[in-house]
Structure formats: structure tokens, C-alpha cells
């Protein structure tokens, strides 16, 4: 399937942390050609691509399915909603944002209340997420009838193909990672592999990585490769803290990542002429790699990130070639692991 099309479709899926299970049927449509699917108790979607052999190499490929959003905390007496964040919502843009409130009888639009410049006074500060109100245009009775505390809220967004190779939309963190893994499986489909390979579209990464943590325990892999997104450089950011858009997957280095696999990925990229960048972290990676690496008695874990601009906004940005090159890197690495390329 066309990568750009996949990115646009995956950006349109709606799942805040804890609601990923609602996507099981939709995701099955994409993944069922590759293996048997199951749902974990926390809602991670698991696809067994190649069954692991006893005492053999078993690779867990992970990308997270959840997106940042909001959750209804109160339905007010005035019909307006109080909410809080589910994941790291950006308070700099929340005012007058258009939302989808996912109620038991369907999704309805809402707007985050804001006072216009004509009426506002005093110093402007970004609101705290738990202090904002949401306007659904409902009377108090209608709001109480249709909406419940705990209902999920996602951001309205316009998935679009910008100029060049760029795709914008919400949730490309980490749906672009999910897309990269689907492409990798596409390329591995006919490969005879000597290792086990399980794909996890994990739940709850944005609120602590609980989906990946428990899936890793359940699957008990020997190795893991996590695909997430990292910062694509814009002029207002420090170059050394970012990767460049279009310059390829960012191969992670960090104390809890497996050093040999990090280098192995770089070697493969060079051999295969896949453009790549490095991302060096000093402590935690801030991704599911942190939870997976420390599962049970430890998992040899690597992290590859897709450069992404405007992270945690409703219009994130990725480069299609970076997604495809990430997929190439993943599939080539898996093949090399299967051939006993493990030096770690």
C-alpha cells in the first residue's frame, strides 16, 4: 500500500491512551495478511508474524498506537465540559482548538473556550489544561444526556500531503512508526526467517508505556526494536537536539539501549545506502524502549526514530522518505538477525 496513503489513513484514526482496543477491527484489516492478531489486556494489538522457536531469537517490533488527547472530567451545570490531558497536550495551542468528543452515541464536535482579543485583559499566559472549558453547543440537559466523565477527546485535524514529500496530520507520533512497521512487514512477507517476530502496536505509551511494558512481559522477547518519532529541526530549536527532515531514520544511542545493535543498525544503513542520523540520549529515551529494555531480566533493545516537526500539535509533519527508509532499515536488520547476524 502507498506510504502516503497509509500515513493519511493512520493519522485519521482516533485513539487516546486506553481506547486503542477500539481500533482492533480497523487495524486487523491492515495486519491480517501478516499473521494472527490478538489483543492484550491493556489494549495493545499484537501480530505474530513468525512464531519464535524454543530458545531462539525472538524480536519484538514496537510502535505505539495511542495519540495524545483529552478526557472529560466533568459535565458542567452550564453545559460546558471540564477536561484534563491524556498525554502531553500542548497548552500553547489549546485555546480555540476544535475537538472531537467521542460519546457513547457517536463523535460530536467541540471547541475549547477562549476569550477574544477584544475582551481579554491583563497578561496572557497559556491556560492549564485542567482549567479550560469545552463548548459543544449543548444545553446542560443535552450535555448530561450525551456525555459522560471519562469520554475520550481527540483533536480535529486535516491530514494532508504538503509540498514535496511531507505529510501533515495529528498523531503522526507514533502512527508514522506504525506505518513504517507495516511497510517493513510488507517487505519481509515472503522472507523465510529463522527468528521469531512479533509486532506490537502498543497502548498507553503517552501516559507511561504500560502497554509496551506488559506486552514485553507477555511475549518475553530476546530482542526488541522500537520505532517512535523524534524532533525534526526547525530554526528555533538547537540543531544538536534534533534530526533533519528527510535525512533518514534517527538511530538511537542511550545507556539502556543495546550498544552493539545501535552500531549494527548504522553498519546496515551504510551498506544498504539508507540515509540515517544519530540521536544520542543520556538517560531515558522517553519511549517504549525504556520499559521494554527493563522487562523481566532485560531485553536487548534498540530505538529508531522518525524525524517529526511540531510534535504534539494537531498538525505534525513527517517526510515520506524518512518513513520508508525507516521501514527499509527495520526489514534489513531483521533479515540480518535471522541469518545469525546477532553479535550482541
Amino acid at each position, binding site marked *: 500500500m502507498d506510504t502516503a496513503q497509509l500515513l493519511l489513513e493512520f493519522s485519521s484514526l482516533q485513539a487516546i491512551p486506553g481506547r486503542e482496543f477500539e481500533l482492533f477491527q480497523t487495524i486487523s484489516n491492515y495486519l491480517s495478511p501478516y499473521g494472527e492478531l490478538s489483543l492484550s489486556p491493556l489494549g495493545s494489538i499484537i501480530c505474530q508474524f513468525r512464531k519464535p522457536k524454543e530458545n531462539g531469537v525472538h524480536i519484538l517490533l514496537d510502535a505505539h498506537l495511542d495519540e495524545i488527547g483529552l478526557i472529560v472530567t466533568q459535565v458542567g451545570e452550564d453545559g460546558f465540559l471540564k477536561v484534563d490531558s491524556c498525554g502531553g497536550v500542548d497548552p500553547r495551542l*489549546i485555546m*480555540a482548538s*476544535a475537538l472531537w468528543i467521542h460519546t457513547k452515541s457517536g463523535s460530536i*464536535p467541540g471547541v475549547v473556550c477562549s476569550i477574544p*482579543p477584544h475582551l481579554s485583559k491583563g497578561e496572557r499566559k497559556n491556560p492549564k489544561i485542567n482549567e479550560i472549558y469545552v463548548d459543544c453547543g449543548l444545553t446542560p440537559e443535552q450535555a448530561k444526556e450525551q456525555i459522560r466523565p471519562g469520554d475520550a477527546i481527540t483533536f480535529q485535524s486535516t491530514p494532508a500531503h504538503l509540498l514535496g514529500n511531507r505529510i501533515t496530520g495529528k498523531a503522526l507520533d507514533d502512527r508514522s512508526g506504525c506505518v513504517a512497521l507495516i511497510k517493513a512487514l510488507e517487505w519481509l512477507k515472503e522472507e523465510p526467517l529463522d527468528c521469531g517476530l512479533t509486532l506490537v502496536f502498543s497502548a498507553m505509551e503517552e501516559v507511561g508505556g504500560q502497554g509496551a511494558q506488559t506486552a514485553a512481559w507477555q511475549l518475553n522477547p530476546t530482542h526488541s526494536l522500537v520505532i517512535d518519532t523524534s524532533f525534526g529541526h526547525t530554526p528555533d*530549536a538547537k540543531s544538536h537536539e534534533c534530526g533533519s527532515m528527510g535525512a533518514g531514520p534517527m538511530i538511537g544511542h542511550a545507556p539502556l539501549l543495546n550498544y552493539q545493535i545501535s552500531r549494527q543498525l548504522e553498519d546496515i544503513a551504510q551498506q544498504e545506502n539508507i540515509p540515517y542520523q544519530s540521536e544520542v540520549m543520556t538517560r531515558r529515551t*522517553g519511549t517504549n524502549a525504556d520499559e521494554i529494555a527493563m522487562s523481566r531480566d532485560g531485553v536487548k533493545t534498540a530505538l529508531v526514530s522518525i524525524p517529526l516537526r*511540531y510534535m504534539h500539535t494537531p*498538525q505534525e509533519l513527517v517526510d515520506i522518505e524518512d518513513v520508508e527508509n525507516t521501514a527499509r532499515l527495520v526489514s534489513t536488520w531483521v533479515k540480518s538477525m535471522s541469518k545469525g547476524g546477532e553479535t550482541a
Partner: protein
Amino acid sequence: MNLMEQLERLCLLPGVSGYEKSVRDEICNQLDGHCEYQIDKLGNVLVHKKGVQTPKNKIYISAHMDEVGFIITNIEENGLLRFQSVGGFDPRVLLGRLVEVGEQQVRGIIGAKAIHMLSKSEEEKPVEIDHLMIDIGTDSKEETLKVVRPGERASFVSTFQQLGENRLLCKAFDDRVGCAILLDMCLSELPYDCIIAFNVGEEVGLVGGTTAAYQAQADIGIAVDCTAVSDIGGSSPEYYVGVQGDGPVVSFKDGGAVYDQELFHLALDTGKQAGIPCQSKRACTGANEAKAMQIARGGMRIMAISIPGRYIHSACSVVHKEDVVNTRLLLEKLLPALAQVEKYPS
């Protein structure tokens, strides 16, 4: 096309102050074959609408075609666009929005570095426009210049949605709602002659409103705009300014003018007699084209009849459908009432 269809069509068009072309073309297309109109030197559309009768004094009614938006100031070497606002914006409603830029309507993201890279104190501060950029997906100035040039405008990408049973959510209700209402009046039979204007550049200093009022040579002027109300969560009644669903908002004073007292009461009385809900504005905030009408030539007696709008000057403004309909009804009922009014207050 009914009033709501007009509204949807007009709101979704790009028309930032100084480049109202799409809106003007749409309005003129619809006026063709129905009304005599002229387009003046600044781009205002002036309609000399014939009614069933001629009033004692000349009545002039206007709405503005322009919306607040952005203007591209510079293209950076890395292909990103620098921009400034056209009209007033709270910077907190800009980040992360998709916009359409220039004649080619190229899509771009208003962006800044991700929140993860900010210190705690930086997180609290709004990103000012100077630090925002528009990203259209290019990597070089050369690539960008093929499709966008400095001086072009950018406006929000928006959809037109129903919000709850009675409200609508879209960009630019300020003041496409006024334009939709006045366009509907142009295409209908009216009881009295009037001059109806669709003006440019209101948001940048009543530019079109000033010159149109001069050309109208009228005695009575009515501005039909979208007024900011905050009858919303987190606010309290003393700050509402107006309430959605309570009908058109009639002003006695605002940041631009002191309105004609007799005409202020006439509007409210006319509404009451006709059974049309209307409300007086509860604060002296905002300004509109009536300010320019008041001081045109020897002066006009002015009114402001406004549609209450929530979250205006953002990509997500909200109006109440009944307020739109009731404003249209009130304006029609006002024509016979105004037809009897003198050139001076009594």
C-alpha cells in the same frame, strides 16, 4: 441558496484584509442579474438596492468582506515562511493550525519547536507571532518562491460544522455572517430603497468602510458585524457582553462610537413589536464600520446590529443559527421604521 447555505459558502472562502477577491467575486456572481452594483477603487461592492418605496432619508447598511488572517513577510533560506497578523490575534490560537497561503492556496502549518524542548517557564508563555513560522513542506527559499511570495495572505483552513442543535462552527463568521445577511437582502424584495455595501479592510482600520460611507452620502448608517461575546464556560454573566440565542445585539456605545440614542431604542422597540428577540450590548467593547459612517462627510446617524460570536478572531468561531435569522428579520423590519426618521435626533 438559503441564508445558511450562503453563510457556509462565504465563510469557507479566503479573504484576508487587502485580498478579498474570492469573496467579492462570489458576491458579485450572485448579484449579477439581480441588482445594480459597482465596485469602487478599493474593492468595495456598493449596491443601490431598489425597494418597494423610497424612504424620507437615505439608509446605508454595510458588512465587511475581510477576515483576520496573515501576511507573508519573508521567505527564509530554509524555505519556511515568516508572517505577521492582519487584524488582531491572541497568539494562543495560532500554533498548530493549518493555513492556506497565497493565490495558489498552498497549505502550510503554523509551527514552532515542540513543547518537549521548552523549559517550564517557557511553557507558560504564548509563542508570539515573531517566533512562529509557516511550513509548506519545502526545504529551500527557491522551492518556496515557486509557489508563494512575500505580501501574499494566509487564512485558516476550516470546515463548516454544526455544533449542538443550534450553533455553527467555522472560521470567519466575523464578518461573513454580515455579508450573508446583506446578500440575502440584496436578493430579496425589500420594503424600502437602501444602499448596501460589502466592504474591504475593516480589520485594518475601517479602510473600505470609510470610503464606502463617503460615497453613500446617506443620512442613516447601520453596521452589521459579528460582535465578540463570552457567554462561555469559565466566564460569568457580568462579562458575557451578549448571550447567544437572545438575538441580534444592538449597541449604545462601543470602543468606536457613541450610537444615536433614538435609533438604539428604535431598534429594540421594533424587535419587541415584531416579536423578534434582540438584546442590548452589555459592554462598550469592540468597534465596527459605524465609527466611520458617523463621521462621513457631514455625519450619519448610526446603529450597530451585530450577531453575537464566540471565539472570533480564531479558526473556530461559533454563532447561533437563530441569531443569524433574527438579525436578518430585524433589519428588514427596521427599514420601514427608519424610513420615517428625521435627519437629526429628537
